């Protein structure tokens, strides 16, 4: 009936070895097999971005990937952002700037923007909005999310400059 494969995947720094149905999506693997329900399903057709995780560092739609495609790769989900229960700078900025309301799209946006800020340390507002265009939010109107991302960029630059 269904085909199973054994996969080894490192998720948020922890190694897992599991047998999965070959047709199971990466999103469902994370949510159901590993109990990491912070990654959300909003459309399952690759538009809304709620399911975004980082695969070997790259932001990807976990709803459009199969779990078997993550074999021997690393995955970071929203649960892996905070260190020792301390919010990451971006998470803290979301809190400070009221960048979430219902919170359902938030995990996907955090993953997308964490990668974006690593690659774009000094973004303009227009660049932030363009980078956000793969994540739909129906609650906030985006403005506070943009503020939070810009504030994080500043905070991270200040931290780097202070360390120099």
């Amino acid at each position, binding site marked *: 009936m269904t085909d199973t494969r054994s996969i080894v995947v490192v998720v948020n720094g922890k190694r897992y070895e599991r047998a999965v149905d070959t047709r199971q999506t990466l999103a469902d693997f994370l949510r159901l097999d590993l109990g990491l329900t912070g990654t959300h*399903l909003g*459309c399952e057709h690759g538009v809304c971005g709620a399911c975004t995780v980082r695969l070997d560092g790259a932001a990807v739609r976990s709803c459009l990937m199969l779990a078997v495609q993550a074999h021997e790769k690393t995955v970071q989900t929203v649960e892996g952002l905070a260190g020792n229960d301390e919010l990451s700078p971006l998470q803290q900025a979301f809190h400070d700037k009221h960048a979430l309301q219902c919170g359902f799209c938030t995990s996907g946006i*955090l993953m997308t923007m964490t990668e974006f800020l690593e690659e774009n340390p000094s973004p303009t507002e227009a660049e932030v909005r363009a980078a956000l265009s793969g994540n739909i939010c*129906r*609650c906030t109107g985006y403005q506070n999310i943009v503020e939070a991302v810009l504030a994080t960029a500043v905070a991270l630059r200040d931290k780097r400059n202070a360390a120099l």
Partner: protein
Amino acid sequence: MSTSSFGASPKRKEDRDLLMGRGRFVDDIVLPGMYAAAFVRSPLAHARIKSIDASAALARPGVHAVLTYQDLPATLRERRMPLFVPHPTLTPRMQYALVKEEACYVGEAVAVVVADDRYIAEDALPLVEIEYESLPAVSDCKLGASPASPRAHLDLESNVVSRMISSVGDIVAAFRDVKHVFREEIFQHRGGAFFMECRGAIASYDAAEGSLLLYVSSQGPHRIKRGLLDLYDLSDTQLRVVTPDVGGGFGPKGSLYAEYPVVAACSMKLGRPVKWIEDRRENFVATHQERDQYWDMEIAVDDEARIRGLRGTLTHDNGAYTPWGIVLPWISVATVPGPYVLPAYHVELRSVLTNKVMATPVRGAGRPEGVVVMERLMDRIAREFNLDAAEVRRRNFIQPSQMPYNVGVIFRDGRPVVYDSGDYPACQDAALKAIGYADFRQRQAEARRQSRYIGIGIGNAVEGTGLGPYEGAAVKVATNGRITVSTGATPQGQSHKTTLAQIAADQFGVSIDAIQVETGDTAKISQGIGTFAARTAVNAGSSVHVASVKVAEKAKAIAAKLLDVRAEDLELRDGYVQLAALPEGAGVASDNARQIRKSLAELAVVAAGMPGFAMQDGAEPGLESIAYFTATQSTYANGTAAAEVEVDIETGRVTILRLVLAHDCGRLINPMVVDGQVMGGVAHAIGNALYERMIYDDQAQPLSTNFGEYLLPLAPDVPRIEIIHLETPSPLNPLGIKGAGESGTIPTIAPIIAAVEDALSPFGVKISEAPITPQRIVELLGDAALGRTR
């Protein structure tokens, strides 16, 4: 801790869990032994079911049950889904939980498959063999209203299920001997809420207790419970409905959907919890939507452009059944008058059944549509008289000195619309000043010289908020001193756990961290209505205030007896009841004075009573109080939105350059939260003005069933939103609050449309529809759009 919490913007208590991926949405809940359900849905908009054969589906390993109408428990076969809002003019039409014989919209649930997991359940869906006989479908409500139209249900005499007249003043006199009469036909297209978290429910039936637990992503579990008690003869304590975290609601999650009692039936039959989560394709066909609305209106004005009367018709696409009666189009009709003096008003509303999924309130709940109608008419008057659009509005405003102002129209709460407070002229002035309205024509002329087409638009709205009948709060201090507020309010992002904590915190003299707000659970408070219609701050906020005041008084009364002081000299602070100030000439060091205090825990223990001892003065036990604040009527907020846009005349693309909203919702509990609600609401308006069209073909087949075809506003589509707050406190509740949840949406569609039309005025383009899409703009421009770069 001496700063007041009300009016401050403390950061949200909700955030930490959500940010760390520890939110608890329905699909995150796993119960032991849980099965998964999937629904077989009609692929035709109108069809008779001739036969169903589930044997192949049942044979698939991992499938545990397939239920059709015939397999439902007796009460679900005998009783249709309940109607909560009947109306004398309405011929109601409600569905059975699964289609009995005649499917009436694409997506209507015909059967349910229960399996080990969702993958297997979906494998089995096409194995349920159903023979459909296709029937003619009603797709357009205007056509559907005609006697020659096919019937949306075979047994209907007419698709028109309600004809309601709203009438104020003498409309005949208003139009008699009047020189200036202008007619507008305005079409507002179907669209939907499209929250990011699809609907879902988990039913867990405990056969030993005969009790049912239902987790559901909703806007109010109490009303869901009420509906289920109509369908299942459970006792009040045998049914508990719980709504955990909700990923957006915007209206449609407030309905009682057929899937919920069906999932319950599955759990009852199988003796296991059963989970159903809607996927996005189902969401496009089975979650309620809003509109179409066809308006045909005539406005009569005097020589000074002052309105004498307004009359016309609204033909409303209700969809296939009437779960919300005529509430939605009625709200539209009652909203049209807006902030203007309207001596006579006469609208006939026709609500028409079509073979589409039902139309029920979506953010704004019909009010934005009413605003679009009135504001398009105002712009028409301005054009005809060659007057400035703002000036026409100024001449017609209700003045602050006229408050309270009886509009005359009867609202859905059965009472006449009476605006209690607000300064409409000041609100418009504030918005126009902020957007630089005075200089705009000059900017526009300069732009045109560079072949750029910019335009400006205004929208004024008065919105009924704080709808009754109540939202309660049970405030309790436990015997260990912990303070809890339980309410029927059910947030889907509106920050109730923070804002309601702020109100309670002020009475207890603590920070919001010391107040735990519990929402969305029928077991935690007896009566509830839910969070929708911008009602929670007014209703629940007032109840939290009243109940907290009572508990504080009780605490002081008990402490006064124990400390042998007067209650009036006591205050609550940081978990204690203590002397507010040192007694005159006491000569006691301040440290000692603070020892003259009792902790809330101690007082709660005293209030709980001791075996063998009577309660003091016959007091009721417990340091607790329940309040159900009841609004006498809606309280009216208002806003003015102004938009400046640029239109690319080759592509039809609209860019919003500036968007300003001047807004009055009375006193603000948490300004940060209000601003967030307003900005989110504006994004919905942008969607409704420019992007969102739920498209059906002429056989009522939904054609736009994914986010590539139904467009939601994305980050580059929403500009920075400039918000100006005015504050006219409401006289109708103790805190002076008005609702704000829909304020960003209601006034904001009209000015975007108006601005596009204004930008294209050199080409004589007139726009009488929403949304206005690039294709349509190019179509309206005709030859003027061609060859600009050649």
